[in-house]
């Protein structure tokens, strides 16, 4: 066999290992992704002499510690302020028919220590999208591993003007453009392979 033939026969194997070895851990499902579809999200709005809070228990998302990927979204129609008329005005302001989700996709700025059960301060950087407008944001929060699940908490301020959302109001009565957003979620481990199979 000449060198050329050997090269042709061996090259595919070399390529195979180069390409597949980095994914082998994922494919075998040894890594865990942490997910929730019932996280809590709230925003607090301020109007003159008053404030109100919108709440939802439909925050959906996942944290992939090994890849440092964080992805969350919420169906804005699930936010309730306690007054139906106000909810309808809010949905109209956010144009939820056209843009039903508020979403964040980004990465952890530093790895999570999965051996620790202490509350860890984390930061994520990525794109937050609402009202069809995406902006890169960095959001601080905490993650705590508790038995097999992760507890996530985060708070930040969302400026409506940054997302082309006009604060609703009439005459002198106008909602403050800055909204305090808070999320809490318990994320349960999911096998990556199970997820990739759509289960």
């Amino acid at each position: 066999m000449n060198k050329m033939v050997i090269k042709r026969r061996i090259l595919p194997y070399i390529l195979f290992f180069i390409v597949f070895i980095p994914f082998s851990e994922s494919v075998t499902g040894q890594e865990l992704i942490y997910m929730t579809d019932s996280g809590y999200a709230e925003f607090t709005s301020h109007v003159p002499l008053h404030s109100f809070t919108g709440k939802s228990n439909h925050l959906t998302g996942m944290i992939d510690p090994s890849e440092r990927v964080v992805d969350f979204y919420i169906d804005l129609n699930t936010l309730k302020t306690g007054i139906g008329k106000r909810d309808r005005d809010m949905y109209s302001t956010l144009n939820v028919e056209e843009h039903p989700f508020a979403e964040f996709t980004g990465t952890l700025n530093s790895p999570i220590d999965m051996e620790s059960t202490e509350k860890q301060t984390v930061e994520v950087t990525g794109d937050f999208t609402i009202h069809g407008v995406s902006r890169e944001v960095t959001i601080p929060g905490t993650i705590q591993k508790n038995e097999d699940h992760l507890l996530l908490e985060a708070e930040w301020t969302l400026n409506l003007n940054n997302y082309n959302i006009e604060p609703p109001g009439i005459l002198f009565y106008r909602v403050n453009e800055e909204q305090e957003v808070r999320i809490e979620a318990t994320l349960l481990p999911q096998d990556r392979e199970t997820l990739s199979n759509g289960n």
Partner: protein
Amino acid sequence: MIKIICTAALLILLSEIATAQLPRERVQPDDQVETVFWSTTNIGISTVQNLSARNLNTTIAHTFGTTNRGIEQFFGLDDGANTRLGIDYGISDTFSIGIGRMTFDKVVDLRGKYNLMRQTTSENKPIDLAVKLSTGINTTAGIGLEFSDRLSYLTSFMAARKFNRLSIQLTPMLAFFNDVDGENENRLFGFGILSQFELNERFALGAEYLPVLGDRNPGTEDAMGISLNIDTGGHIFQILFSSSQWHGEQFIMANNRDQFLDGEFRFGFNIHRVFGL
């Protein structure tokens, strides 16, 4: 071979990227139809609308003299107002309690409203059902009545449905007065018919009619009213014309002596404001 491997690698790489973002799925809860009525009172009759838990609703209701009194009485405004101040509080999302006080007979009323069913967007539950219990106490001094003689009661059953922008409510009710004058009835049955039509996000029209069924107090008429509801973003204003100057269903049935269709109606307004506590 190289092409196959590269294709496989690309597919795996794409699947990895895909797992970085979850598929976006809308939540499909069996949502309640919101705001069947914009406020807990339409004009003078309570609606199926209730307060959410820990919400406080304040109400200021005014009704003046009849407009047919002319310019001399400034179309009834100079005749003085019957004013009711009230607060209601949501104990839960389906149960609220309230207290109020009106000028006429210095009546203090205590009331509770409970939602038995809420209309859902899926039509799984096609109507709203609620029940209201109310006690009125005539607190006028020096009229020689025992405490029990000062009491009156109301039980009303509310069934409502929202059809797109139109809401209709039917409200059979029973009032009982412990002590009455002359030929007045202790027991009065009524059947309230309420409606609201949303013109847009800020304005809605309201109407109500409260016929007394069976025996009624002499000289009384079935009450009727129309209103323009305005949502200011924080308050609901109801600018109204109503035959009855009284507030509270049992007092409207027992005391209304004006006939709306004969031009005997008065100007009034209700202001509702909800605070989250």
